[in-house]
């Protein structure tokens, strides 16, 4: 691996590090709000990876002069990833809002937003239900 390859790819690897930190928060943490924060971090890292693919050396932001007298020598950065990521950011906030609404709803129902406590309550509910069904069948189930 030579130096120019390293310089040309190190940005991708740094974005992967950020992505994986977000993924770690999603997988390892039990708190639902924290999971959503981790998901947001992952998402932002993906956006950065995508935008960095559109960068051109010596390029400038893809905006023409307001008088529209365009110098043909100007190099513009690829505007297409910017458009796609603008859409993705707005969709991302919509899904975040939906996730947070689910968290609020879970808290109302279970009184907690910790994953392991919710699982415990679910198990208690299931065994209680089994007990009642067992009684209805004369204690033989």
């Amino acid at each position: 691996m030579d130096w120019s390859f390293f310089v040309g790819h190190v940005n991708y690897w740094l974005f992967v590090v950020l992505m994986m930190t977000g993924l770690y928060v999603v997988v390892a943490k039990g708190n639902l709000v924290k999971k959503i924060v981790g998901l947001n971090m992952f998402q932002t890292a993906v956006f950065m990876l995508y935008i960095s693919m559109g960068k051109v050396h010596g390029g400038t932001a893809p905006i023409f002069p307001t008088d529209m007298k365009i110098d043909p020598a100007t190099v513009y950065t690829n505007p297409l990833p910017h458009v796609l990521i603008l859409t993705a950011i707005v969709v991302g906030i919509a899904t975040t809002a939906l996730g947070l609404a689910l968290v609020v709803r879970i808290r109302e129902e279970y009184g907690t937003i910790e994953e392991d406590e919710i699982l415990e309550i679910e198990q208690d509910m299931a065994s209680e239900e089994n007990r009642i069904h067992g009684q209805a069948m004369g204690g033989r189930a």
Partner: protein
Amino acid sequence: MNTLIDIVVFTMLVTTALAVVRTHSLFATVMLSGVFSLLSALLFVTLDAVDVAFTEAAVGAGISTVLMLGTLALTARSEKPSSHSPLIPLLVVLVTGAVLVYGTLDMPAFGDALAPAMTHVAPDYIARSPAEIDVPNIVTAILASYRGFDTLGETAVVFTAGMSVLLLISGRRITRAEAEKGATGNAKGTDDAIGDGSDET
């Protein structure tokens, strides 16, 4: 100079991400997530994506922080320390990261003007938009005109998400605790209360 700014912003981003992993205060987590978005907006500016930068600063650092603070007000203030071992998540993350890095090895170098992403529609958009759309900002021209259906789809997604949020958290609902309390009043109601609970889950 640009490289120096990139390195500084990257270091701050990684520090913020690690702080989110370490802290147990949810308020601090939400604030750090806002900081993360703002730093990423800074990085977008250095990558020439100014439209993305201000959208990220407004939406990522602004609206999402407000939504999360609202959620915190309705739920909890701090996180319970996890009782699980972090080894398995760490392994999953390391393997996934290694696969992703392996995937980047074939990618064109950063800033390569001859990369596949630069040679198809993008130069076409840049060449044609002054004559066809006549808007100085190429991103606006593509967003609203060439790829207008993308934006229409985005609007549909936002509408659906908004409706779902309203359905989830507005109006009066019977919680499980209340259903159980109502059930203890008459002994025969126990089955019904549990039936209701399983319907909702």
